[in-house]
C-alpha cells in the first residue's frame, strides 16, 4: 500500500520534471545572431520581387557594418495581422516594416510608424530623387515624411502583341465594327475589342483575363476602369463621387468585360490564376502589376515569352500602388533602422536592385541608361506613372477596399446593379468619415 503510493508519487514527480525541463528548455530565446553584443536588424516583408533583390545584397551591408540583417517574409494577407499585434505591444520585434499604400492612412492615424524628418535632416538624405507620385503615396502624409518609397506595383495593361497585331483579327474587327483593333482607344473601345476577340477565339483565347476575387484583386483591377473612365473616390471638394455616372459606367464596362470577354472562372480568380491564364496563352490582355511583364517575357515562367508588351490603360489613367519602408513607433533603435534604410535606398543599391529585376521608385534609377537598357519597358512605366492615381489616403482605407470588393463582386454576380452596388459603397464611405 505504502510502496504503491510512493511509486505513484515518483511517477508524477518524474512526469512534472520532464515537462518543466522541456518547457524551460524551449522557453529560452535563441536570438538569431544576437546575445554577443552584435547588432541585428529584423525586417518584416512580403515576398515581392524586390525582396529577393534586397536579400541578395545584404551581405554587402553586413560586411560593411558588422550588423546582421534578418528578413522575415510572410504572405500578403497575413502581414497586416502580424504587424498589428506587434504595433500594439510596448516593444516591436521588427526594426523595419514595409507598408502597403492603402495602409498608410491607418498606420499614421494610429501612430504606428514614426516620422522620419529628423533622421532625414540630420543625415542629409535627399528625398527629392523619388518619383513624385511614389513620394505622395508611400512617403509623405500631410507634409511629414513617414516612409521611403520601397518599390512600386502600379497596374497597367499588359497585352499580347501577336494577338492585337494579328492581321486576320484586325481585318475581321474592322469589318464587324468599322473600328481599328487597338489597345490605345477608350475603355469602351477596349471592352468591345476584348469581347470581339473572345467571340472569335472562344475558349482558347479570351480577349481579357480578369481577377474577380474579393477584396483586393477585384478592387484594384476595377480602380483602373474607374480612373480611366474619369471617375474617382472623392472630387476636388472632398465629396464622395464613387457612385457618380462615370463610376457607374466604369462598373458596367467592368461587368460587361467580365461576363462576355473574360474566361468563365474569372469572377473567382486571384491574380495568380489570372496570371497563369495569360502565361499559358489563354488571354490577349490583362490589367496587372507592371512588373508582370518581365515575368511573362521569361520563357521559364511563361509560354508566351517575347509576345507581350505593356501599355497605358485605355482611357489613360492607371492605379498607382507601392510599398514604403517605415520604422515602427516602438522600434528598439530607430537610428539603427535608419542606417539600414539609408543604405538600401542609396542610388547604388537601388540601381543594383533594379538590374536584378526589382521595381524602382527613384526617378534617377528609372532613367539610368544602364537600367533602361536592361529593362526598356521602364520608360513606358514612368510615363504611365505620371498619369496615375491612387487609392485615397484615409484611415479606413482597408475597410473601403473590403466594402468595395464585396459590392463589386455583387455587381459581377448580378445580384446588384452597378448603381445599387456603388450607392452602397458611397453609403458606407459616408459612415466611415
Amino acid at each position: 500500500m505504502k510502496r504503491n503510493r510512493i511509486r505513484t508519487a515518483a511517477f508524477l514527480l518524474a512526469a512534472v520534471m520532464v515537462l518543466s525541463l522541456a518547457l524551460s528548455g524551449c522557453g529560452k530565446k535563441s536570438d538569431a545572431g544576437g546575445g554577443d553584443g552584435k547588432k541585428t536588424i529584423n525586417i518584416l516583408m512580403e515576398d515581392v520581387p524586390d525582396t529577393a533583390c534586397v536579400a541578395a545584397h545584404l551581405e554587402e551591408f553586413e560586411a560593411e557594418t558588422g550588423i546582421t540583417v534578418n528578413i522575415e517574409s510572410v504572405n500578403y494577407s497575413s502581414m497586416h495581422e502580424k504587424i498589428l499585434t506587434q504595433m500594439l505591444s510596448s516593444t516591436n520585434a521588427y526594426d523595419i516594416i514595409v507598408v502597403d499604400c492603402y495602409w498608410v492612412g491607418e498606420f499614421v492615424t494610429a501612430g504606428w510608424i514614426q516620422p522620419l524628418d529628423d533622421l532625414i535632416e540630420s543625415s542629409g538624405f535627399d528625398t527629392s530623387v523619388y518619383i513624385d507620385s511614389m513620394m505622395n503615396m508611400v512617403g509623405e502624409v500631410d507634409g511629414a515624411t513617414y516612409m521611403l518609397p520601397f518599390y512600386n506595383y502600379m497596374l497597367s495593361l499588359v497585352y499580347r502583341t501577336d494577338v492585337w497585331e494579328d492581321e486576320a483579327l484586325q481585318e475581321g474587327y474592322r469589318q464587324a465594327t468599322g473600328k481599328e483593333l487597338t489597345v490605345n482607344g477608350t475603355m469602351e473601345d477596349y471592352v468591345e475589342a476584348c469581347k470581339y476577340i473572345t467571340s472569335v477565339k472562344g475558349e482558347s483565347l479570351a480577349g481579357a483575363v480578369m481577377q474577380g476575387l474579393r477584396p483586393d484583386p477585384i478592387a484594384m483591377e476595377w480602380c483602373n476602369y474607374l480612373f480611366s473612365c474619369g471617375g474617382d473616390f472623392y472630387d476636388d471638394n472632398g465629396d464622395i463621387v464613387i457612385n457618380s455616372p462615370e463610376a457607374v459606367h466604369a462598373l458596367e464596362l467592368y461587368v460587361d468585360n467580365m461576363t462576355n470577354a473574360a474566361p468563365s472562372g474569372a469572377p473567382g480568380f486571384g491574380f495568380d490564376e489570372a496570371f497563369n491564364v495569360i502565361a499559358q496563352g489563354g488571354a490577349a490582355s490583362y490589367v496587372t502589376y507592371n512588373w508582370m511583364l518581365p515575368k511573362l517575357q521569361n520563357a521559364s515562367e511563361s509560354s508566351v515569352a517575347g509576345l507581350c508588351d505593356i501599355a497605358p490603360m485605355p482611357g489613360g489613367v492607371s492605379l498607382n500602388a507601392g510599398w514604403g519602408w517605415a520604422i515602427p513607433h516602438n522600434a528598439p533603435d530607430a537610428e539603427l533602422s535608419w542606417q539600414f534604410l539609408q543604405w538600401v535606398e542609396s542610388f547604388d543599391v537601388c540601381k543594383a536592385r533594379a538590374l536584378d529585376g526589382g521595381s524602382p521608385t527613384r526617378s534617377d534609377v528609372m532613367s539610368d541608361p544602364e537600367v533602361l537598357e536592361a529593362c526598356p519597358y521602364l520608360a513606358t512605366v514612368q510615363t504611365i506613372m505620371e498619369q496615375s492615381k491612387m487609392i485615397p489616403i484615409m484611415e479606413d482605407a482597408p475597410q473601403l477596399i473590403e466594402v468595395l470588393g464585396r459590392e463589386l463582386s455583387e455587381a459581377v454576380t448580378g445580384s446588384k446593379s452597378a448603381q445599387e452596388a456603388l450607392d452602397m459603397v458611397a453609403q458606407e464611405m459616408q459612415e466611415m468619415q
Partner: protein
Amino acid sequence: MRSIRRKNFTVFMLPSLIALLLVLAIPLGYSLITSFFNTNLKYQGLGDFVGLSNYASVLQDEYFIESVVTTAKFTVGVVVVEFLAGLAIALLLNNIRKGRNFFFTIIIVPMMITPIAVGLIWRLLLHANLGIVNYMLSLVGISGQAWLADSSLALKTVMFIDVWQNVPYMVLVILAGLVTLPAEPYEAAAIDGASRTQSFFRLTVPMMLPTFSVVLLLRTITALKTYDLIFVLTRGGPGTSTEVISYHIYQQAFRYLEIGKASAMSYLLLLLIIPIAFLFVRISRNRTA
C-alpha cells in the same frame, strides 16, 4: 470520502484547470469586456463604454444576418455528410482484416495537410480554365464548371473541399471506437439469428452513441468556426455567397480593427452554440444513465 474526492481533484483535475485558466482567462475576459466598448485598435485604450450597442448594430447588419444563414447551411451540410461518410467508411474498414492498414493509411492523409495548402491546391485542381478536374470531366463529355466563380456553386465547392479534408477525421475517431466494442454481444446476437443490419442498429449504434455525440458536437463547433478554407478559396465571394460568420469576425477584427464589434459577434456565436452543446450532452448522458 470527502477528503479522497478532494485529493483526487487535486491530482486529476487541477493541473488542467490551471493550464486552461492560464491560456484562456485573459483572451476570453478581454473579448467579453471589449464587446461592451467601442474599442478600435487604431486608438489606444478600450474606448467608450457603449453597453449593448455593439450587439445591436451587429444584429442590424444585414450582411451579418446573411452570413449566419450561410454558416448554418455550411455547418449542417458538412457535418452531416462527413459523419455519414465517415461512419460508412469506418464500418467498411472494420469489416475487413486484409488491407485495412493500406486503405486506412491513404484515406486519412488529407487531414494531415494544413488547410491553407489544401485551399491553394484545390484552387489549382479546380481552376476553371486550367484545372485538371474540368479537363478530366471534358474527357468524359461533361462540360466543366466555374467551381469557385459561380455564386450558385461556390458554397457547394467549398463544402466539397471541406468534406475531402475532414471525412478522414471522422473515420479515425469512429474506427477507434468501433474496434474497442466488445465481441460477445455480436456473437450472442449472431446465435440468436440477428441480421447484420439488426445488430448494427441494436448493438453498434447504442454502444457508439457517446462517441457519435461527441464527434458531432466537436465537429459542429469547428465547422462553425471554419475560416482558413474560406479565406484561401473565396474570401466570401463571389458576391456574398460564401461569407461565413468567422470571415465577418476576421474582417471586423483584423481589417477594420473594430475589436469591440468582433467580440460582440463572437459572443453572439457562442450564444448560438451553447444550446446545441447542452442538447448533445443530454443525448450522451441519457444513454449512460
